């Protein structure tokens, strides 16, 4: 393990953890503005997390170790994932860390345990949320695989660090296919973070929940960890998208000035993306549940064509 | 020809319109006969029109069928209008489409340029669809649209094949060409794989037009739901498709992909016959029965073409002619029966021999002819084609024979069940009870029941106009004559065609 990666391992997760809640709040604020309200403060989510940490954790008597274990597992999985996605600088690749397939599997692990946790408390809503989430995830998986495969194909590597080393610093994406891949990545972002039109994150009606229902029974510290994990997942996926489509400013060297610049640039780019997500969410209504697979298959079709074009032409 | 079209717009009288249509048909007939006997073929007329024995022959068949149909049409449309199924205002459109169909078919046949052929074939599809749709019933529109979509869609594939041919010729000759004549000369220089692909695509297109399985799905609906006249005309258009296939195949014969092309044709032919025979057995609708019989015959034609020997082609060409004759007879008779019973279903045909003896006999004789019994001409044609198919594979011949027997049985079954329904009058309790008696089964109804229900009345006999009767008899007689005596001029003509197409 080289020093570059060690530094990266210290810096990246910390940066991700600190920046993640900001963007949750930013998206909520944008949605509020679109609705004519002022919305929460930008640092609201930090305060929320702090409040949650102080609260009492209550467990249902029928729950098992899964419910207690899931929040910690989720957060740690996502912290490991944050080692995969370069946000402030691109390190030298080290071993398997950065492999895109491992990344996919870690995300799957996290989703799996969240679903289990939803089932664990024994409430009907949790079970409903888990089953919905799993069945929809099954349909979006192929799209994710193919989009990441397309990304790997264009950028000629299976390692995220190597991929982004190729594109780092350039203003425009290096190949037109990347534009198409970014569209797929955007759809995946929407789906994985449970945003409209797939799922309304602000809903309080349990029967309309997909993602929220699974963490309905969690309380206190556990809930804080889960919320943080969710925000982290969002940031990481945003990071991949940003590095694909707008990699300007990402530095490949260990230089304090350059790292600071790229961190700042990343914050700005992520802010822009958050604004886009917020506006996108505000302009759509939630799709009916049974129509979602059709939408996913359309996304799959899109990514399949992208990779066909890339491979065959 | 254009004059006829223009004049067709003017008259309001049905008689005049019909006379013009018939005149149009006869003009074409006369022209083709004259051309055949007098011109030194093959001959070019200008840049894109080209006359040779094959297309004059097909033109002959087409105009013959057309003229007969025109004669028949008068009586038929008259009765349609009386029954209220045809709006008199649509009559003009009907005849317009009628004439237009013949004209476009003629131009299609005579064109040398493949693209022109394609365009005019599409136009014939449109005209035929209009004819099918002319009855204002909703099912007819469905049938017409099905026809248009399936055939036009398949023709788009044929266009792809055209593009292939164009690139091929561009590659080989330096300048792209779509003329049959030029392509035929250079066919052996073309790259085989592309030629085969082109053939496959064009086969899809022309096969759909000809009504070959699996693109035949428009046929049963079009025949069953259209007025008989339209059915006849659709049938004529099938010959157009076969013409295209013959030309394409002759183009391919020289190259070394001929065996694959053969197998495509043979496979499609066998599939058509199989599908048709098995469907025919279940049919209770007369016109659908005839439609599937058409599919079967097209299949046999394909086999004849696909075998590839000169003898098979000779008989296939003869088959085209006699098939039209016999099919028209059948359809004319079926049309009369439809007018009588207002339905094509077997169950609704009672007392055929009392009401429409001539039509019934027309149907019977026509069925005998179409399944290939001697002395009708389809017999030698089928016989020789089957003989040639034995050269390809004896199993093929066996299978074909079995399926043809099945088809014959279907016809027999239908006719037996339909024609043996007789209303029998019985005196019982002073009420004259009429009952329907089928072959072997009698349904008796008691007097008490009868008193409450409507009595089964003998329907009024439908008066068949002479215009409707004559063509059927004429066609049948011609078929019979051809069966008994094979004119030498016909033989010379067919030989000339074979020579021209390059079959040595």
């Amino acid at each position, binding site marked *: 393990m080289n020093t570059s990666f060690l530094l990266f391992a210290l810096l990246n997760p910390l940066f991700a953890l600190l920046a993640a809640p900001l963007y949750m709040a930013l998206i909520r604020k944008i949605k509020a503005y679109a609705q004519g309200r002022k919305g929460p403060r930008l640092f609201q989510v930090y305060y929320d997390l702090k409040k949650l940490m102080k609260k009492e954790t209550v467990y249902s008597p029928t729950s098992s170790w899964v419910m207690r274990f899931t929040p910690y597992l989720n957060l740690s999985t996502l912290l490991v994932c944050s080692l995969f996605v370069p946000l402030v600088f691109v390190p030298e690749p080290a071993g398997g860390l950065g492999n895109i397939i491992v990344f996919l599997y870690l995300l799957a692990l996290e989703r799996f345990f969240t679903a289990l946790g939803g089932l664990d408390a024994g409430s009907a809503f949790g079970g409903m949320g888990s089953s919905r989430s799993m069945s929809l995830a099954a349909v979006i998986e192929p799209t994710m695989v193919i989009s990441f495969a397309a990304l790997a194909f264009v950028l000629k590597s299976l390692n995220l660090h190597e991929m982004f080393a190729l594109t780092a610093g350039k203003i425009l994406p290096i190949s037109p296919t990347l534009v198409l891949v970014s569209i797929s990545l955007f759809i995946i972002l929407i789906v994985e973070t449970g945003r409209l039109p797939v799922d309304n994150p602000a809903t309080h009606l349990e029967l309309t929940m997909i993602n929220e229902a699974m963490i309905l029974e969690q309380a206190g510290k556990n809930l804080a960890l889960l919320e943080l994990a969710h925000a982290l997942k969002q940031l990481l996926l945003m990071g991949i998208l940003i590095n694909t489509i707008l990699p300007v400013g990402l530095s490949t060297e260990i230089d304090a000035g350059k790292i600071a610049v790229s961190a700042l640039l990343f914050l700005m780019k992520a802010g822009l993306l958050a604004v886009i997500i917020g506006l996108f969410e505000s302009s759509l209504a939630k799709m009916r549940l049974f129509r979602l*697979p059709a939408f996913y298959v359309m996304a799959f079709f899109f990514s399949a064509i992208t990779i066909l074009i890339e491979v065959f032409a | 020809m254009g004059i006829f079209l223009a004049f067709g717009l003017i008259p309001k009288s049905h008689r005049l319109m019909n006379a013009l249509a018939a005149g149009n048909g006869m003009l074409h007939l006369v022209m083709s006969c004259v051309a055949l006997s007098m011109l030194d073929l093959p001959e070019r007329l200008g840049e894109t029109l080209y006359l040779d024995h094959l297309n004059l022959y097909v033109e002959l068949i087409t105009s013959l069928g057309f003229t007969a149909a025109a004669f028949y049409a008068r009586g038929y449309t008259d009765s349609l209008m009386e029954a209220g199924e045809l709006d008199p205002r649509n009559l003009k459109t009907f005849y317009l489409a009628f004439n237009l169909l013949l004209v476009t078919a003629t131009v299609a046949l005579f064109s040398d340029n493949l693209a022109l052929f394609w365009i005019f074939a*599409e136009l014939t599809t449109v005209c035929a669809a209009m004819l099918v749709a002319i009855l204002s019933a909703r099912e007819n529109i469905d049938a017409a649209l099905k026809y248009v979509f399936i055939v036009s869609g398949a023709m*788009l594939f044929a266009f792809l094949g055209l593009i292939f041919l164009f*690139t091929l010729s561009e590659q080989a000759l330096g300048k792209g060409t779509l003329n049959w004549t030029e392509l035929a000369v250079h066919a052996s220089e073309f790259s085989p794989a*592309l030629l085969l692909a082109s053939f496959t695509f064009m086969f899809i297109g022309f096969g759909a037009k000809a009504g070959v399985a699996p693109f035949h799905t428009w046929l049963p609906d079009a025949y069953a739901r259209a007025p008989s006249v339209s059915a006849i005309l659709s049938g004529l258009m099938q010959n157009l498709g076969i013409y295209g296939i013959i030309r394409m195949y002759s183009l391919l014969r020289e190259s070394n992909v001929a065996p694959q092309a053969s197998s495509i044709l043979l496979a499609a032919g066998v599939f058509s016959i199989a599908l048709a025979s098995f469907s025919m057995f279940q049919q209770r609708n007369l016109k659908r029965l005839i439609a599937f019989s058409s599919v079967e015959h097209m299949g046999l034609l394909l086999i004849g073409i696909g075998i590839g020997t000169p003898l098979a082609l000779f008989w296939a060409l003869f088959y085209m002619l006699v098939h039209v004759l016999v099919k028209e007879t059948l359809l004319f008779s079926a049309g009369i029966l439809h007018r009588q019973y207002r339905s094509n279903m077997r169950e609704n045909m009672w007392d055929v021999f009392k009401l429409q003896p001539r039509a019934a006999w027309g149907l019977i004789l026509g069925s005998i002819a179409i399944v290939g019994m001697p002395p009708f001409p389809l017999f030698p044609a089928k016989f020789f084609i089957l003989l040639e198919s034995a050269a390809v594979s004896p199993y093929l011949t066996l299978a074909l024979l079995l399926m043809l027997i099945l088809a014959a049985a279907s016809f027999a079954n239908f006719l037996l069940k339909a024609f043996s329904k007789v209303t029998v009058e019985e005196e019982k309790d002073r009420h004259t009870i009429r009952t329907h008696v089928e072959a072997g089964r009698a349904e008796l109804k008691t007097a008490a029941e009868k008193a409450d229900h409507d009595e089964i009345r003998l329907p009024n006999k439908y008066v068949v106009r002479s215009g409707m009767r004559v063509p059927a008899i004429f066609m049948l007689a011609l078929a019979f004559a051809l069966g008994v005596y094979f004119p030498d001029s016909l033989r010379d003509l067919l030989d000339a065609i074979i020579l021209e197409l390059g079959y040595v």
Partner: protein
Amino acid sequence: MIDPTFLEGIIKILFVFVLISAGLIISTRNLSSVLTAYTIQSFLLAAVSSLLYMIDGKNQLLLLAVLTLASKVILIPYFISRIEQKIKIGRDLHFAYLEPTPSLLLSIGLIILSYTFLSGVFKGLPLSKLFFFGAVIGLSLTLMGMLVVFSRKRVITKALGYLSMENGVLMFGLFVTELPFIIEVLIIIDLIILVILTTIMAVGMDSSIEEYRQKFRKLQIWTGGESQ
């Protein structure tokens, strides 16, 4: 001059969107969306043609682009939207034999099928990679259009599927060879067919005979000269 590789990159992106529009025609249930998808498809076709003109410089291509734009992006959609208004308004849902999901998966299969077929067939013909892929897309578009014609029940969608097929054939021809004026004639023929279909369909696919007659009279089509 604009860099050809850049243009080729843009053409690649346009290819994807053409296929997407075909996928939309297959899978969408809303009538007006099908028409929009077709319009977008024709527009993309015109764009591809003009880009090819910029690469190759043959006037034919520009003429084709303009013609496509005029007839397929403006005229035909206008016609069809008029039909859609005449047939009962508010008829959004579409009945399909094949659900959208398997049709889309089938289309991917069709694309791969056309690729393998054409790569086998085109061995003798030297085509640049982009042009070859253009031919593949043309053939796939035709096949997908055929899928629409066969799997949908409503006639308007069938008609749009047919038009999509024709777009595919056009694209195929565009990339495989330089077509003579035939293409323009093809377009005109299609317009004729469409006009006829329009009259048949606009008068009502689903009305009974009486309504049908009334509509005929009301719209004064096929009056045989009595509409004064």
